[in-house]
């Protein structure tokens, strides 16, 4: 129950950061001078969502390791919840990425490293749920899901790296070794949205965890009545 108490605070915090980020993006940050022009505004939510999706899968990865060590079903629940949210965010990344692609490059789809990697991420984590759906026994389902979650998370950066071998794409490289290549005002707006999205993720994870716990509780109570 402790989780539910702090949830509103987190949601409000996430909301404040996200709205501030949005306002800054449109009112404070300059219109991008390069060829992307105004459509670059999509970036202010697109990139934080991408980062948040990866954070969600990272949480699932850690939860999977902890599950394998402890066999504690709570870690399995955390894994499911984070993968589900990661998947929602990934789909948003794809959708907004495609819109951006249409605006900036004139095509909806380009076989470009980041877009391609996220496509595979979506396939991978949909497969995670397929895997869960075909194992009935609870402990075994949690174990397999954890193993797959670990392998999948390791595979994501490898895939991203491998796509560099493909003929070059046209995604703008925003963050390079030399720095972010962004004016300071853009960076601030971007950074605030990033904090907001991450907070939103944490808040949603907590609430979904509560949902899963309540579900178990309902099942228990039903059992006790039935029995």
């Amino acid at each position, binding site marked *: 129950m402790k989780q539910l108490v702090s949830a509103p605070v987190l949601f409000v915090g996430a909301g404040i950061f996200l709205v501030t980020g949005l306002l800054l993006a449109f009112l404070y940050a300059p219109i991008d001078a390069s060829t992307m022009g105004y459509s670059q505004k999509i970036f202010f939510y697109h990139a934080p969502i991408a980062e948040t999706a990866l954070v969600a899968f990272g949480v699932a990865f850690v939860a999977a390791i902890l599950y394998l060590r402890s066999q504690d079903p709570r870690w399995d629940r955390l894994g499911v919840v984070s993968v589900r949210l990661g998947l929602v965010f990934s789909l948003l990344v794809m959708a907004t990425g495609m819109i951006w692609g249409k605006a900036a490059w004139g095509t909806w789809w380009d076989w470009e490293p980041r877009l391609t990697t996220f496509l595979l991420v979506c396939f*991978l984590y949909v*497969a995670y749920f397929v895997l869960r759906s075909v194992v009935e026994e609870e402990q075994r389902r949690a174990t397999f899901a954890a*193993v*797959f979650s670990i*392998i999948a998370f390791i*595979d994501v950066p490898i*895939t991203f790296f*491998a796509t560099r*071998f493909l003929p070059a794409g046209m995604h703008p490289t925003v963050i390079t070794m030399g720095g972010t290549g962004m004016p300071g005002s853009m960076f601030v707006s971007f950074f605030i949205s990033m904090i907001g999205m991450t907070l939103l993720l944490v808040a949603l994870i907590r609430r979904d965890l509560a949902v899963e716990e309540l579900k178990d509780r309902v099942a228990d109570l039903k059992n006790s009545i039935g029995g």
Partner: protein
Amino acid sequence: MAILRKDLIRELRTREMIISMILFVLLAMVIFHYAFSVKEDADLTYFTGGMLWVTFIFAMLLGLNRSFAQEKDERCLDGLLLCPVDRVTIFLAKTAGNLVFLLIIQVVAVPVFTLFFVSRSYVGDLVPFLIVMLLADVGICALGTLLATISMNTRSRDLLLPIIFLPLIVPVLIAATGATTLIFAEGAGFGDLLARVLFLLGFDAVFLVAAYGTYDFAIGE
């Protein structure tokens, strides 16, 4: 080692799997030929790398499903698990068995595909080609064995394997196909291939370690 020997002996004795796999490879080649003959005298050299690796990966899927279906149906694996051997030993033996199986397929497929599709000789690049092939094979077999062990223990065994295996194997496919195409089409020296070779090496290392760490859990109680 004994497990590997058992699988091999069993295969050589029945021959059903190897023969059907070789047929599968030849049929795939014919299918590819018709699918890609979009114009007269089209040179398929640039596509041969892709065709080869697609064939290998799909052949491997069939092979993996079968190798574990047998174990499951005849309850061999239960016996294996009772043996006082490390689970990781089982993993290594199974991986090696699948590797041998894949190599047999390749021994047949590569010359045939070369004969029918590749328009220039790459004899000089044979060594780098073999290195690329072997490295990619190890990655495919290690990951494939781990995932087949999981999928075998689920309700929809052979349906699940491609869904979890294919997205994970994409990096190997990209690197191996790129390297093979470079060799077949452009006669690239070892220098051009180095990045891909190192990448495959890294992939093998990472997933052998990952499988080593998780196989205990994958094989179940």
